[in-house]
C-alpha cells in the first residue's frame, strides 16, 4: 500500500475543475494507475480525500495498492517547474499499529442510514445531517473499524450532552451533481469531516479500515481515514 500526497495549485483552472466536481477528481485519481483497469472491481480499492487547510493550501491524499503516477495531475493542477508529489510506502506504518496506540485521525465520510418513514414502505438511504447524528454514525462504527474515539475527561466537557468525545465535525457539505448512469441523473451527497483522537482496539480491523475505507461514496472522496501523531497535551 502507498500513501500519496499531492498539493493542488488552486490558481489553475484545472485544479478548480477538479475541486468543483468529485466525479472529475475521481476520474483523475483513477487515471493515475496504469495497471488498474476500470473494469477490474475485485481488488482492494483506491481511496482519496481532499484536505483544505486554507484557500491556497489544498492537499489531495491517495491511499492505493499500486504506486500512482500523478504526471497528468501535475500538468492540469500542479506546478510545472516543480512536479512534486510524494508517495510513501504505507506498509511499515500499517504493520507498526498496535493495540492501545493513540493517534489523531481525520476522516471525510458520507454518514447515511436506512430508514422507513411509515410501516411497509421500502427503506430509503438517508443522510445524517446534524453534527450530533454524524458523530453518532462514526461512534456506531468504531468498534467494527478497530478503534475507539478517546473520551474527554469530565472536567473538560463544556456541554452536558454531545461533548463526551475528543471529536469535532467540521466542513459539513451538501453537494449535488448530475450523473448519466444514475436513475434520475442526480447524485446528492452529504459529507462531513471528522477530526479527533482514537485508541487502537483491533490493529487488523484498523488496517482494513485505513486501506479499504469507512462508509459509502468512496469514489467521491469519502471514507479515507488517515492517522497522525497525537499531541499529548491536547
Amino acid at each position, binding site marked *: 500500500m502507498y*500513501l500519496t*500526497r499531492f498539493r493542488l495549485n488552486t490558481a489553475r483552472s484545472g485544479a478548480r475543475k477538479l475541486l468543483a466536481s468529485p466525479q472529475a477528481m475521481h476520474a483523475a485519481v483513477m487515471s493515475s494507475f496504469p495497471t488498474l483497469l476500470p473494469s477490474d472491481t475485485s481488488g482492494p480499492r483506491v481511496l482519496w480525500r481532499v*484536505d483544505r*487547510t486554507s484557500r491556497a493550501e489544498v492537499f489531495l*491524499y491517495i491511499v492505493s495498492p499500486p504506486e500512482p503516477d500523478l504526471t497528468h495531475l501535475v500538468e492540469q493542477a500542479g506546478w510545472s517547474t516543480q512536479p512534486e508529489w*510524494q508517495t*510513501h*510506502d*504505507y506498509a*511499515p*506504518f500499517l504493520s*507498526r499499529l498496535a493495540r492501545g496506540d493513540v*493517534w*489523531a485521525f*481525520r476522516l471525510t465520510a458520507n454518514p447515511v442510514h436506512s430508514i422507513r418513514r411509515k410501516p411497509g414502505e421500502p427503506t430509503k438511504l438517508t443522510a445524517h445531517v446534524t*453534527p450530533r447524528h454524524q458523530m453518532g454514525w462514526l461512534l456506531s462504527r468504531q468498534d467494527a473499524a478497530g478503534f475507539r474515539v478517546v473520551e474527554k475527561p469530565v472536567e473538560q466537557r*463544556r*456541554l452536558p450532552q454531545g461533548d463526551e468525545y475528543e471529536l*469535532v*465535525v*467540521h*466542513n459539513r457539505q451538501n453537494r449535488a451533481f448530475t450523473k448519466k448512469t444514475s436513475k434520475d441523473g442526480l447524485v446528492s451527497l452529504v459529507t462531513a*469531516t471528522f*477530526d479527533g483522537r482514537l485508541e487502537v482496539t483491533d490493529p487488523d480491523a484498523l488496517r482494513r479500515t485505513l486501506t479499504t475505507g469507512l462508509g459509502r461514496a468512496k469514489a467521491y472522496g469519502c471514507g479515507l481515514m*488517515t*492517522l*497522525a*501523531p497525537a*499531541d499529548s497535551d*491536547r
Partner: protein
Amino acid sequence: MSVLALLLAGPLQAWGASARFARRTTEHAPTKSGVLGLLAAAQGRERTDDLSDLAALRFGVRIDQRGTRIRDYQTAKHLDTGRSMPVSERFYLADAVFVAAVEGDDTLVNDLHRAVRNPVYLPYLGRRSCPPARPLDLGIHDGRTLEQVLKEEKWHAAGWYQRRLRDQPEVTLGLLIDAFPGDPGADSLRDLPLSFDPLHRRYALRGVRSDTVSVPNPCARRTTPPDHDPISALGGE
C-alpha cells in the same frame, strides 16, 4: 431556606431606582423593589399592605443578556379633561434577559412560587407597559444558597444572542447580589421598599455587591479542526 428563581425577559423592561418626576430612568438590571413589587402583586397584596416580610428576603440578579437602553419621549392627554399631561422621558431596556432570585424562609418562598404560577395581579417587568415574554417561573431550589442558584442556572439569553457569542465557549455574566452588612466593596442604592403606598412611597438604602459568573454557551462553535499531517506519522520514510 430555599430560593425562588425568576426569568425576566421581555421586549421592554424598565427598572427605576432613583427615577422621579418626568424623567423616568432605568437601572441596567432589575431592582429589588421592582421584583418584590411583582411578587407582592402576584400574591394580591394591596399597595398599602405591609411588605416587611418580602423586604427581608435576600435578592440577587444575573444579567443574562444586557439589552440596549432606549429613550421614549412621551406626550399624553388626560382622558377626562383633555389637558396635556407633563411631557416625560422614559427609558427602557430593550431585548434584555435576567435571572432574578429571592432567598428566604421556606413557607414564604413556597407561597411566592404558588403566587407566581397563579398571580392575582398580572406581573410586568418594572413598568405596566412591559409584559414578560417568557414564563417567569424557574422553580424553587431547596437547600441551596442564592449564589449557588444564580451560578448554576443555565444561560437564558435569546438564541440569536448566544450564537453571536459562539466564539466564547463560556460567557461571563454579571451578578448583583444583596451585600451582607458591613461589606466594604458594596454600592448602595435607594432600592429597599418600605412602603408601596401611592401617597407615601418610601425606600431605604440597600447594599449591592457586584460579581461575575461563567456559564457554558450551548451555541459555542466547536473548536477549530487541528492540523493534520499523516505523512509525519510514517516516521521519515
